[in-house]
């Protein structure tokens, strides 16, 4: 009983930290550009497999190369997705939705064809564990929580203090007014998608060592990000962080307290449906969905 309670707390916190990174990026792109990026899970997948590929082919040293390459590539891909696919179709909601969906599919197939369609696992980024009140806690877990805490803080500071961050907020408020003020809206949107892709990349690197590597995981990442953002309120960054932890504790509760891992995949849809029916603007959202 105590064991499962501790598992619940630890794994809920870990997953919450990861989800926070994912949902923050997803929400940011929506809040700034009105784009619901169906390829968000694909960003995760790209980093995940680059990381894995480097590790397999370059050994222990490959972990570091994998992190660097994975993050750089995914950020660039994020920019390219915006410039080549989303921007030309911006006037057509249907077009953006389908094209990012197709891109997500494409990445899944590229992974299957170029690597393989099987499940794999990765080693922890740092070995060892420490004892907290008699409970063994992996050092990697601590890394995950600390790293994501730092990154969430940095991104929040960046958006609120840095010059680009201010432009991002201006575009989020009123793109037309921002462009009249001389802000290049397309460039800001490209940056926003890149930030979001980068965050998804970080999430992948932190989470993959304790999760699986498989071609289909992008979809559950996408659905979970969507559910969290619907829960926290579309476009609200604090909302997505809070939503991330609510979701992950709910998930951990089902897994470690109720022992019903099978239904944990149902949580996001239940959350989505409930929120959309009961409170469509989410916990923190300012505007209703329209």
């Amino acid at each position, binding site marked *: 009983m105590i064991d499962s309670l501790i598992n619940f707390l630890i794994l809920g916190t870990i997953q919450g930290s990861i989800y926070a990174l994912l949902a923050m990026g997803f929400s940011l792109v929506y809040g700034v550009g009105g*784009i*619901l990026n*169906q390829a968000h899970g694909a960003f995760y997948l790209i980093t995940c497999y680059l990381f894995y590929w480097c590790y397999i082919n370059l050994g222990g040293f490959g972990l570091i190369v994998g992190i660097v390459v994975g993050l750089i590539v995914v950020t660039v891909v994020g920019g390219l997705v915006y410039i*080549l*696919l989303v921007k*030309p*179709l911006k006037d*057509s*909601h*249907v*077009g*953006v*939705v*389908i*094209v990012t*969906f*197709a*891109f997500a*599919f*494409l990445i899944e*197939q*590229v992974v*299957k*064809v170029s690597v393989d*369609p099987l499940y794999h696992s990765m080693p922890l980024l740092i070995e060892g564990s420490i004892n907290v009140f008699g409970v063994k806690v992996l050092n990697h877990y601590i890394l995950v929580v600390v790293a994501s805490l730092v990154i969430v803080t940095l991104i929040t500071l960046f958006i609120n203090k840095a010059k680009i961050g201010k432009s991002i907020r201006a575009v989020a408020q009123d793109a037309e007014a921002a462009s009249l003020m001389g802000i290049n809206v397309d460039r800001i949107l490209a940056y926003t998608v890149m930030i979001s892709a980068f965050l998804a990349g970080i999430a992948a690197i932190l989470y993959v060592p304790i999760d699986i590597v498989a071609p289909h995981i992008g*979809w*559950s990442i*996408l*659905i979970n990000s*969507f*559910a969290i953002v619907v829960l926290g309120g579309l476009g609200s960054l604090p909302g997505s962080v809070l939503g991330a932890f609510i979701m992950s504790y709910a998930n951990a509760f089902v897994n470690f307290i109720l022992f019903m891992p*099978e239904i944990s*995949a*149902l949580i*996001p*849809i239940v959350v*989505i*449906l409930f929120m*959309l*029916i009961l409170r*469509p603007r989410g916990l923190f959202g300012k505007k209703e*969905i*329209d």
Partner: protein
Amino acid sequence: MRIIIKKIAEFPSNFQSYFRDWISTFRAKVTVICLIGLSLVPLLTQNPYFLGIFTTFMIFTIFAASWDFLAGFVGQVSFGQAVFLGVSGYVTAYLIRYLSFPWWLSLVIGSIIAVIFGLIIGIPALRLKGPYLALGTLAMSLIMYQVFLMGSLATMWENAFGTNLFGAEGVSQITPISSDTVVEYFATFLIMSVSLLILTHITKSNVGTIFKAIRDDETGTSASGINTTKYKILAFMISGLFAGVAGGLFAMRFRGVNPGVFQPLYSFYAIIIAAMGGLATISGSAIGALIFVFLGEILRDTQDLSLLIFSIILILFIRFAEHGLLKPTLERIQELWDIVLGR
């Protein structure tokens, strides 16, 4: 507003003149030629393998047309079309396998249940617009996939009813429409023709006008005094009906279904087929499905590679050729036609 009513123009009012007008158009001639051509295929070959491919192509045509109806004419982009396909597929398969219902009755019941799912999806979908709807429906199909995959449900069901419904195997060993592939071919052909006819007719009717209005401007439609909620639900039910028809046929064609039919993959198939044919065309789905099924057959041994190619095709079509193939092709053929006739 008494003064403004004057009779301005004549409109064809009865079916005969409507039909005469229709058949005189170039599109109608092409449609008729295509249908005749398709009905002649079994005369050329009775090879079950070939006829089977054609049957598959026709099933996918119905499925993609049901998506195109919803997205192209009502503006509701669903990524969960697979839900209808799967639900009806499961019901049809189950009724045939365990209750020994005749295939047509199973198909009808399966499709009706898909309509009910149209209602179930339609109601929350009313709160969702544009991309939310897409993601919401995607989530819905993933959930169906998970539910049907559940091992615990499988055991529970088996203990309660002694049959297999849930679980990875799905419902298998279904008898097809007929052991004679020619009969199977013609049954599917008939169902496809009728489905496309009804869908096309709906888009041209008064209800279709309202659907298109919702697609173009939902707020404006409500300002025109239309209860958009009612019509959106109706659209989901119609779309569900035909996707359900495709699902039942699918189950019989492949002798069974498994949870895989609920995957986003099948929704993706519908989208790529409709996009290749051209959005908002209904019959364009036939061209898209033809390419899709035959290309898929050629790349059969490398399924992942073929999906990779299809993803690229879809991206290119949406990005560069939003009209798809149907309209441009018809225009080319018409030019040729005019030249041949020396006009």
